[in-house]
């Protein structure tokens, strides 16, 4: 069964450092998303991406965050200057259509900011 692949599985970074989280969505999917989940809490929407641009973003997705699809297969989330409160599990997801398809999630990257 097709999978969404995320790397790395764990990332520890110093506060103020930049991190890039990487995702390879399912190849024929058109919509891409980043979500985060702080330990013990619900899954929160960060950003959606379609046709090489951001289609929607949440309040969490401020100027410190950016997304890119640099080469037609990878989908990256960059956090420019990490804060302690950015520590969370970050999930990438993709879907074949905007509202009528189940989303396929990757296994996540656990980001720890120290």
């Amino acid at each position: 069964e097709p999978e969404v692949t995320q790397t790395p599985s764990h990332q520890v970074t110093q506060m103020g450092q930049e991190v890039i989280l990487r995702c390879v969505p399912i190849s024929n999917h058109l919509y891409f998303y980043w979500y985060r989940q702080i330990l013990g809490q619900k899954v929160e929407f960060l950003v959606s991406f379609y046709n090489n641009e951001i289609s929607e973003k949440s309040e969490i997705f401020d100027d410190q965050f950016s997304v890119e699809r640099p080469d037609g297969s990878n989908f990256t989330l960059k956090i420019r200057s990490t804060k302690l409160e950015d520590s969370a599990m970050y999930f990438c997801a993709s879907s074949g259509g905007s509202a009528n398809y189940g989303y396929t999630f990757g296994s996540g990257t656990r980001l720890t900011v120290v």
Partner: protein
Amino acid sequence: GQQVMQIPQYQHVQEGEDFTTYCNSSTTLSNIQWYKQRPGGHPVFLIQLVKSGEVKKQKRLTFQFGEAKKNSSLHITATQTTDVGTYFCANPGGKLIFGQGTELSVKP
């Protein structure tokens, strides 16, 4: 996006007992999706409901969409330890908005 509220937040059952989680919205939903997240895992898509009053079954799982399309439920018959995890309803209106989830624990 439209927020969805889920209850209960936690449910502890004895293996073999039934389990139900409820999802409510203050506004009409076009459709609703359900996901399961095992402890330490990622959300996995279970099902989507679209029609008013729709009922779908997956083995021991029964999903319902209310007549007014403002609520939904997931019922598990005769729970097993493999059912452990958090069940989320989600409103897929262009971006998927998750409810808070119901964490199910099953005592063997």
